[in-house]
């Protein structure tokens, strides 16, 4: 790939990401719905476990990650419905916009939308499961949330793109996405748990390293594969 081609793809990514974010903003009621859905999931977990505060604290990281994962799935499905309404995505392919550019633009916009969930879900989880908002771990939480958004967005966009033209999308997307996300989910559960419960053994570094590696691999591989996903079924 020449420098000029790379510059062209980067310019396409920026133009398409601006378009995606503009559309997300104009459909912000959908974002609010996704955030409220996440809060509801957190609330349901706290009710399911009951007043046993120790059990809640132990499982808090897992509950937070599951709420994020479910909210991500909901957001992805909606995001691709916009792409297929009146053949808009086909229109981009005809221009022709690069498949990699379409992928990275969509992944950036999904990741940024997921970042918006953090300031709401993390404090709610702290209040529900720990009983206080610990400001000490705030910087770590923000960093982890960024990695979570990146780790969920790339495979999410790939599989949402793959299943979005199918009638059974609602079922297939979680079936395909969740197994692939297992390494990221496990690392996130451990890392979020360490922030929420404390990290006396200083294990955080190793989990963050695993997360960084998987985020890197996902963003690289999914960007390459998305071109084939777009052309599949033509």
């Amino acid at each position, binding site marked *: 790939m020449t420098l000029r081609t790379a510059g062209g793809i980067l310019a396409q990514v920026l133009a398409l990401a601006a378009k995606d974010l503009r559309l997300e903003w104009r459909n912000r009621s959908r974002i609010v719905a996704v955030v409220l859905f996440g809060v509801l999931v957190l609330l349901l977990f706290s009710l399911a476990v009951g007043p046993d505060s120790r059990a809640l604290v132990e499982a808090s990281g897992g509950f937070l990650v599951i709420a994020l994962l479910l909210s991500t799935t909901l957001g992805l499905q909606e995001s691709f419905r916009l792409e297929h309404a009146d*053949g808009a995505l086909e229109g981009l392919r005809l*221009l022709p916009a690069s498949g990699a550019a379409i992928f990275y633009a969509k992944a950036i916009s999904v990741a940024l939308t997921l970042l918006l969930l953090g300031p709401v879900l993390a404090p709610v989880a702290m209040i529900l499961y720990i009983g206080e908002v610990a400001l000490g771990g705030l910087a770590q939480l923000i960093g982890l949330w960024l990695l979570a958004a990146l780790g969920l967005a790339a495979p999410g966009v790939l599989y949402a793109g793959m299943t979005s033209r199918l009638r059974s999308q609602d079922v297939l997307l979680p079936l395909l996405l969740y197994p692939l996300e297992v390494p990221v989910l496990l690392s996130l559960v451990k890392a979020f748990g360490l922030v929420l419960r404390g990290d006396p053994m200083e294990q955080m570094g190793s989990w963050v390293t695993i997360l960084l590696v998987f985020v890197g691999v996902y963003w690289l591989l999914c960007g390459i594969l998305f071109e084939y996903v777009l052309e599949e079924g033509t």
Partner: protein
Amino acid sequence: MPAAAASARAEAREPTDAIWCEGVGRRFGRRWALAHVDLRVRTGETTVIVGANGSGKTTLLRILAALCHPSCGRIEVAGHHPVTQRTRVRRQVSLISHQSFLYGGLDAFETVALWTRLLEAQGEPPVGRQRIAELLDSVGLGHVAGVPVRDFSQGMRKRLSLLRAAIEPSRIVLLDEPFAALDPPGQQLISEWIGVFGRAGRTVVFASHALAAARQLATRAVVLQSGQVAWSGPAAAMPELGQLPALRAAEGR
């Protein structure tokens, strides 16, 4: 492929051909939407594809635009193969389809600005805001530049889609039922633009039920029936309705 699908072989390919198909077919499940079509369109020519609903017009245009893979046959569009060289084909082809290919959440100005930015990223010259406003005026959408596309009528969407073909640097323009859902001024606008594309040396292929417009605008005509070529030749020599069942079906009589 049904035996009845076999038709006369395509004429020999020449370097001046913008589109060349031989034995092209497309199957969806067990049904052949397009069966063994031979088609040759010379550069700069305006060709109309006539046929009833389900005769294979849309499938053929989508194959030519590299949006649909043929199940069989040989094909070249602007000298490239639409399956193995689809990006090159798409650079040379503009498609105006039943679907508008537009985002309902963007307004008309933002839509054109997005197209121009994406084309600029591919090496085309930048287009300023003033020029975008002029382009919208040219299709009668200047006064609704800030209105979201979701609030547009079908006709207004088609006008905006037409603008894309105007700004793309493609050599071939494909239009699928361009006169459908348009009022008389809209139909007049489409006719004018087809003329503009032709005078600019661009190859135009449009699918239509409107036989009068087809005879007036096109130099060549291809009549499709059940996915096969029923007749092809100069548009002016296209048979009358009574002479060809496919034409009666196309006009819905």
